[in-house]
């Protein structure tokens, strides 16, 4: 390593941050279960509240699954930057000289691996509970796999704006849900198309486009939001 450089290279910093966040999540692994337990509880409330009729549940399954996913994501998002803000690590990112955009991306990626991916993996169970037809199961998992990163990326902007607030988490839902509306519409549209044996590829294509767009644009907004919150 060159003794004269004062900063580590960007890829090295990126992966160091990613590794550290995953290690921190692992140290508190029981806390990772809270959003998943929340997801299970919320989904089970629907049959309890609406009635267990299989046809009815199947009809509302795509919407219910996706709304529960949105709620669980928003709950898990609050921890994205909060501990870094509170112990001063966040301002160190700003001073480090590394682009804050890439730091935001690394943190969002870590967050998705820890909160979004389990959601995707748990979804088949929830789909069975909601009596979703098996022919739509693959599409449902695909929509979640493609779109939960979008939720994390866009949600990170909201978290960046509210991280310095005491009750930031509550305001967060109001801020991000309007932004989630298109994702909800397209994802559930795709699952419903699969249920009706109609072509669903367009929906997945749109989600992929959304993912690429968010990957390129959202971190910039998140970095700007963090700079504002730190000031």
């Amino acid at each position, binding site marked *: *390593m060159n003794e004269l450089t*004062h*900063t580590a290279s960007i890829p090295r*910093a990126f992966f*160091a941050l990613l590794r550290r966040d995953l290690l921190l999540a692992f140290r508190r692994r029981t806390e990772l279960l809270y959003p998943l337990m929340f997801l299970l509880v919320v989904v089970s409330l629907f049959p309890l509240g609406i009635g267990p009729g299989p046809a009815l549940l199947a009809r509302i399954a795509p919407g219910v699954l996706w709304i529960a996913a949105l709620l669980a994501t928003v709950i898990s998002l609050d921890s994205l930057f909060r501990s870094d803000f509170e*112990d*001063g690590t966040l*301002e160190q990112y700003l001073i480090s000289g590394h682009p804050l955009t890439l730091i935001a991306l690394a943190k969002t990626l870590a967050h998705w691996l820890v909160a979004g991916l389990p959601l995707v993996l748990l979804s088949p169970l929830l789909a069975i509970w909601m009596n979703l037809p098996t022919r739509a199961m693959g599409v449902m998992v695909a929509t979640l796999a493609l779109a939960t990163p979008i939720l994390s990326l866009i949600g990170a902007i909201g978290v960046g704006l509210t991280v310095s607030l005491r009750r930031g988490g509550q305001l967060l839902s109001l801020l991000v849900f309007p932004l989630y509306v298109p994702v909800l519409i397209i994802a559930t549209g795709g699952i419903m198309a699969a249920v009706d044996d109609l072509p669903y590829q367009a929906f997945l294509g749109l989600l992929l486009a959304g993912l690429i767009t968010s990957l390129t644009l959202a971190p910039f907004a998140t970095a700007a939001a963090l700079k504002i919150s730190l000031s």
Partner: protein
Amino acid sequence: MLTVSQLTFERYFQPVFKPLDFRLQAGGLLLVTGANGCGKTTLIRLLAGILTASEGSIKSTAAGTAYVGHLLAIKDDLTVVENVRFVRDFLGTGSRAVSEVIEQLGLRRVAHQLARTLSAGQRKRCALARLLLCRVDLWLLDEPYSNLDDEGIGMVDRLLQQHSDNGGGCVVATHGNHRPPIAGRTEIQLISGHRSA
């Protein structure tokens, strides 16, 4: 290295401190003193680039800045070794061994303990690791002596001396009585900008 002219920062539409002018040369140390609430931390954060000045300018020719603030930026759920290793990988040159740095900070005994279990003084020492892990021109230290015992204070002074000898500049904010015995030391006192003060 650092030239500051007519620097002001407003919060709630009132200036935090009266306009500031000063210079910091390479090898110099600037001590910032003042009563509680007169803006020492604000000034440090302005110099660090976290805050943007309301009026005035900061011109810096420093290659790199290291900042140890009031918030220590260490993770409670990681051990000392893991914390130091992260700072090395994220910020530093990587040429210094983690164990060497921990030795220098006097944390060898607690190296594999979680940061949460450390005393306030030990946490402070751990936070200072970033100064040893990167070669930067400018150090910004906000209350570096707080929570440290005499040995710790001596260690900080040694670090400051080394940094000054290497041509680095340093700004230290403190409200305590200890003054680092550095040759090129200058001092400014902040005056609160509030009219009622």
